[in-house]
């Protein structure tokens, strides 16, 4: 694929609805699935799709994320012909500029893109859990000589008001695009993944920023392209895709890994589509003599003496004897004492829970943060 395509990963968001989980870290760095962080999915997709130039746009609480991404070696971006860059907001000659939304963040990095001068730019959000081969999107864009391809998926009728909704003609060409409509005949929702022809994107961003100021893809860029009759297409995606923006949805997506083998197909040795992540330097998980574990995922480095059912256990977690963990997500480094009861919750990283404590006996999923 080489210099044909650059991927820009938007990783600056706060993820306000994740409550305390994003108090000191950005949403893409939030732990997921026993071993991963949310950003691993988009970056592994890039790696598996043959993308070699990746820029990560960071802003909110970026220290942990920047440390984690480092040279990109977790995903193999330290190889030859790869370029892996962390792009933070910066001081410029004319003043200081924070990223004011997605399109603005991209606009502010046009100089970075110009230094590579790709044919296409893939704009990716970093807070979704899915596997996708972006190479297919690129090929579709090249085949249709598209100025923009928006990947989209069908959502439930009740959810259309949360998304940008597309209507497509029989050749997948975009007819209309409406941001968060109250109701709609189409249920095709934008996934926030854009494959732009670089030249078109550059021209549009330069032009619109002079007229409008702070830019947004959904509000300004897409309507403008439609208006000018540019070649904008939708690319339907049919696989597993989850937005993990809330505690409830984050918990649900973790549980999907246990309940639904097909969801992310993590255990298929032959797919060649692995999700890559950091390797912790820890022993394999140790399961004690009186422990019991069912319907769960457990990562290396954890030590379990208690009873774990339908839960996701991250690395370095210790669960004491007599403790019951049910329907929960226990994040890295959490130490739980003896005879505690933990149900229906997410426990945030490195928390210590004392002996005999009962944590959330209710049915609502909650985050335990202190």
């Amino acid at each position, binding site marked *: 694929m080489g210099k044909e395509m650059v991927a820009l990963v938007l990783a600056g968001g706060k993820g306000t609805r994740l409550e305390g989980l994003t108090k000191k870290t950005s949403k893409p760095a939030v732990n997921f699935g026993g071993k991963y962080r949310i950003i691993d999915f988009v970056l592994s997709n890039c790696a598996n799709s043959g993308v070699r130039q990746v820029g990560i746009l960071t802003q909110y609480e970026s220290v942990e994320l920047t440390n984690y991404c480092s040279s990109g070696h977790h995903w193999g971006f330290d190889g030859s012909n790869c370029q892996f860059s962390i792009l933070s907001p910066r001081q410029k000659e004319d003043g200081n500029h924070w990223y004011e939304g997605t399109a603005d963040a991209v606009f502010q990095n046009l100089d970075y893109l110009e230094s590579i001068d790709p044919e296409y730019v893939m704009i990716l959000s970093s807070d979704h859990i899915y596997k996708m081969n972006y190479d297919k999107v690129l090929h579709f864009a090249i085949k249709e000589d598209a100025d923009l391809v928006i990947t989209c998926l069908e959502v439930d009728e009740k959810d259309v008001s949360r998304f940008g909704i597309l209507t497509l003609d029989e050749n997948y060409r975009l007819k209309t695009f409406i941001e968060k409509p109250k109701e709609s005949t189409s249920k095709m929702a934008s996934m926030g993944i854009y494959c732009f022809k670089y030249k078109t994107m550059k021209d549009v961003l330069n032009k619109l920023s002079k007229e409008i100021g702070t830019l947004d893809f959904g509000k300004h860029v897409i309507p403008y392209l439609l208006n000018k009759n540019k070649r904008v297409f939708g690319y339907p995606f049919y696989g597993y895709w989850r937005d993990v923006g809330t505690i409830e949805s984050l918990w649900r997506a973790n549980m999907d890994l246990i309940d639904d083998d097909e969801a992310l197909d993590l*255990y298929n040795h032959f797919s060649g589509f692995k999700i890559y992540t950091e390797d912790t330097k820890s022993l394999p998980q140790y*399961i004690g003599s009186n422990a019991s*574990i069912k319907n769960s995922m457990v990562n290396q480095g954890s030590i379990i003496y208690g009873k774990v059912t339908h839960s996701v256990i991250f690395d370095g977690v210790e669960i004491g004897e007599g403790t019951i963990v049910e329907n929960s997500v226990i994040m890295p480094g959490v130490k739980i004492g003896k005879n505690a009861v933990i149900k229906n919750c997410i426990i945030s990283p490195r928390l210590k829970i004392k002996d005999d404590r009962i944590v959330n006996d209710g049915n609502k999923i909650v985050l335990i943060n202190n």
Partner: protein
Amino acid sequence: MARVLGLVNLHSSPNLGEIVKNRSFAALTILGRYSFVDIPLSNLSNSNINTVGILVNRCPRSMIKHMDNAMIYTNNTKLGKTIICYNEQYANNNLYNTDINNILENEWLIDEGKYKYVVIAPSHIIYSFDFNKVLEEHISLKSDITLLYKRINNAKNNYIDQDIIDIDSDGNLIKISKNLGVEDEVNVSMETYIINIDKLKSILRFSHETSKFFSLKDVINYICLTTKVNTYEFEGQIRIIDTLESYMKTSMELLDMNLAKEIFRDDWPIYTKTHDTPPAKYLNNAEVSNSYISNGAIIDGKVINSVICREVEVKKGACLNNSIILSNAYISEDAKLEYVIVDKGAKIIHVKELKGTKEHPLYVGIGDVI
């Protein structure tokens, strides 16, 4: 420790029979996740010894494969390196295939002029140790050679045939001999040496002039009659693997977390290659107790006192007792295994009962379908 060179000596590795037919002992898995060679390499790396040669005696393929990302053992990848040293010309001649001849063949490494001391460690004697402690003593005593040993008090029935050492009241080596089980209290040689580089060079010359079949141990045993060889008592835990039985026994002993944490310390990480496997998954019928489970494993059967490696599948109704299952093996429904070592990729399908003993574990070969 820029002036210290590390050598991992595989020439005294034990022959465990079938299981090392196609691999070097050092490449064999321990605790479901590591290879034996990871332990000395990590001890050296954690001791800030940046450049390490691995003296490979046989089956270099397995070592080259394991070391494909040798950077993980190096503190600074520009300053340090990990090199596989192999003695091609004597590879098929057991008598000549000695550590001395291997070092001579790769003499450029010690001739680089950068090093003042060499630390030589084996991979079949496992322990956790900061070599700086013995280096300090070695330097302050102005020793030329220091040999590490462990004092034990149950040698009548243990450590049979291992090298034991006699030392005088000043702590100098008198001789190296075999433990015949005569006495309980003996000093077991850890086959770990600190040698001044100039002394090593003179040993190499002397050895060649005396006998071309001499191993390092032979020379040390010979020259200690006339030269001072300092000894250093190691206080921590060690385990020596010399037979298939002791491989099994050590693996089972390490199920005791207190012992495991002395060799695999939290503050002294053991580095190894990552395979990017997802967390282990436990299904509805899983019953696991007192076992190590590695990532990527899918467990739906019963696992007791066992070590399960990466991406092993244990089906419903299967029962593993006191067994070691190496990576990618498959244990079909209702198979009962006791004291069995199943090598990589083997599939237990048709045979539903396999039983070895503590003294003679049953071995199922790489990729065998039975």
